[in-house]
């Protein structure tokens, strides 16, 4: 009779060993299933003409009709272009500056000051975009803004109509987003850099490597996994935009649309009046599917380049 004998490494033993961990995971897993996976069923709404008297399941299928408005006009191409270009700029800048500031902060000798800098760089991230919108307004308001009233006259320049001309806004929005968002990535890189074994640095110094060489050959390769993970996650959201940034900061000024209109704001403005759930869902589905494909693609690329750094 072999029933009673429990061999080491058997199923039952393994289960007993890992059970506490699975139990700890359970609440989180249930939450994610309910909040993220079950609603996926709602994707069908994008393909239906919802009639509430028939319910969602009973409504008619309309194929891809709800997606048409995203591609119908020239505006549609503008919003796609804007969304992608802005997000690319955000990814590149936040990456570069995040790592730069992380390296700076990690090199600060004074422990207290280090904490102060960390908090300071994270603080804008925690601010609501509505407040940021008003701060920008305080700067760039055409009648009373600090720039028009104090800074430009200091240089002898005429006041500029900031909210009436679209060309300034790519720079302004990129700056605002970087100011607000760099703290998040920076903190992750700081903790990654903190985890690097100091003996590497000691060995490098003995070999006569200067600071820059150390950063290039030790720091960067060691935090490469974090960089790749964060970047892949950002690429997955490349079709999404921070609604607050593109709606609140330009204060919904029509003259700025050519450079500040992105998919989220276009959908919001176009469909607010109609209340058409099918079309709004179609926009969401479009964004998610593109993001999903891009993540798979990027991961494939990373796999080819350096297998162990890929997400999956």
């Amino acid at each position, binding site marked *: 009779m072999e029933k009673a004998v429990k061999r080491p490494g058997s199923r039952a033993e*393994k289960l007993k060993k890992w059970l506490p961990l699975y139990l700890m995971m359970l609440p989180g897993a249930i939450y994610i*299933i309910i909040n993220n*996976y*079950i*609603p996926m*069923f*709602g*994707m069908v*709404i994008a393909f239906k003409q*919802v*009639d*509430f*008297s*028939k*319910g969602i*399941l*009973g409504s008619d299928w309309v194929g891809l*009709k709800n997606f048409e*408005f995203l591609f*119908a*006009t*020239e*505006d549609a191409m503008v919003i796609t272009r804007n969304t992608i270009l802005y997000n690319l700029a955000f990814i590149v800048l936040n990456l570069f500056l995040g790592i730069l500031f992380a390296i700076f902060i990690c090199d600060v000798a004074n422990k207290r000051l280090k904490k102060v800098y960390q908090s300071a760089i994270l603080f804008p991230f925690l601010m*609501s975009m*509505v407040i940021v919108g008003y701060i920008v307004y305080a700067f760039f*308001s*055409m*009648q009373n803004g600090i720039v028009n009233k104090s800074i430009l006259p200091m240089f002898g320049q005429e006041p500029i*109509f900031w*909210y*009436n001309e679209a060309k300034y806004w790519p720079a302004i929005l990129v700056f605002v987003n970087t100011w607000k968002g760099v703290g998040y990535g920076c903190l992750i890189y700081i903790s990654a850099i903190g985890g690097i074994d100091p003996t590497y640095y000691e060995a490098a110094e003995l070999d006569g490597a200067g600071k820059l060489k150390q950063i290039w050959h030790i720091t960067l390769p060691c935090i490469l996994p974090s960089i790749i993970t964060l970047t892949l996650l950002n690429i997955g959201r490349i079709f*999404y935009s921070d*609604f*607050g940034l593109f*709606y*609140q900061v330009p*204060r*919904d*000024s*029509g*003259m700025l*649309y050519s450079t500040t*209109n992105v998919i*989220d704001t276009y*959908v*919001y*403005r*176009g*469909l607010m*009046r*109609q*209340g*058409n*759930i099918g*079309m*709004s*869902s179609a*926009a*969401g*589905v479009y964004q998610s599917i593109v993001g999903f494909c891009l993540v798979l693609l990027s991961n494939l690329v990373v796999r080819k380049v350096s297998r162990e750094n890929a997400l999956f």
Partner: protein
Amino acid sequence: MKKNISLLLVLAVFISCVLGGCGNGSDSESGSTASADSTVSSAVSDAATSEDESQEASSGSTAGSGDYTITMAYIGNEQPNQEAVFAKVSEQMQQDIGMSFETIMLGFGDYQDKLNLMLSGGDKLDIFPAFYTLASSYINAGQVVNLSDYLEHLQDAIDFMGEDYALAGQINGYIYGLPSNKEGATLGGIVMRKDIVDELQIDVDAIKTFDDLTAVFEQVKAAHPEMDAIAGTNTINSIPEWDNMLDYFGVLMDRGQSTTVENLFETELYKSKVQRVNDWYKAGYIKLDAATTTETSSNLVKAGSLFSFLAPIKPGYLAQTNVDCNREMVTAYINKDDGSVSNIICTDNVNFFNWGIARQSEDKVKAMQFLNYAYSTGEWNNLMNFGIEGEDYALVEGSDIVIDYPEGADTANCYHLNLGWMMPNQFTGYIWNGYPEDVWQQYQDFNASATYSKAFGFIYDPSSLSTELTALQSVLNEYKRPLETGSVSDVEATLKEFNDKLYAAGLQKIMDLKQEQLDAWLAQQ
């Protein structure tokens, strides 16, 4: 081992999806709605539901059991004592029609979102506010009841308002709601600060047209350069010379007397109006940030940075605006450029705000009876609007219609919703102090003297062209506000751009659709 666990997980997800999908289709959570997270409207919900237990019907029990509770959603803000007021309303209703009353309050900032959720979620709801702009989507999504099936229960309401008016809330015969009884026509005019008018000795009576205003602004600007002479908002719409026909895509010119749908933004009239506002902006009369400001004109006047603004002026407006601006104001009606008065009633003057019955109402006949009651009963309107007699308001001495706060009380401790335009039938109720005693008669005269647009009563159904409508709406948002606040640098070039984009987005299709539906509707009249 790993493979088995992942298989199990996938299975679990599948099963929960299937389960989530089955069951009440109308109640399952819809997945991604608008992909835009609206940080615009406040996320904090203000909706307060006051529970009113139905009281035992003491005396005078009329027809119907005392069991049915009407749930009504309304838009307003939190008032002191509102629990007591709603309890009184419920009591009154129990006595009169044998139903109890429950309210759901929606805040001004987020009522649209809340309403969408309630209607699609199937919450308990009988009566809700239906704006005419959303009527078409309510009808197509099956969220509102067609009142034409229940007209026999609405006889009192129809008699009071007149059939034309009462049945104006309809598209293609589908009556989606009863309009609230309010002033229909609006005469536009300018509202100015009295102290500056006196200081500069401006002759208010001589102000009749927009060009007269230009001279006034010049004076004001010279004397008070720190102040904006006029707010940039409402510059074009305050003097309505066309019928908007629900949105601005194709209008009826000549005060709605023409029956050909035209593109407003290509007309000479529109261009000249926009050009004038543009001249004002360039001369510095209009706040430079007009295109992006979210501050109300009355607040700006209150703060002392604005001299005047344009507004629709109805009888009794001055009293209200004096309170809003915290200063004494004077008004002057503005006429069209040729001096004639522009006083038109279009569909949107009347059925801007309606009360509709939600599809999920459990007893539609009772809901209809309630509506009928609300439209014809003064006590109900008074209770909802002004609170309890004696506590929140009292009749002014010597009058049996005019009311004011009771001795020693004021806004801070009295229920004072004061949203007459929203009430089903404010004409049956009392008049607040400050408005003329015969204000109801004045409203009716006002309405009677107006020119009715030929398309009065007609709302077109754009649901077959929702793609074009979305694109057009986006173009409209982009150009309309900048043009009408004067913020563009070159009016001609911008107008051309605007029109090109409109046509590229499908304006002609919408106009043809409107014309077709209008012709069919006219033929039936």
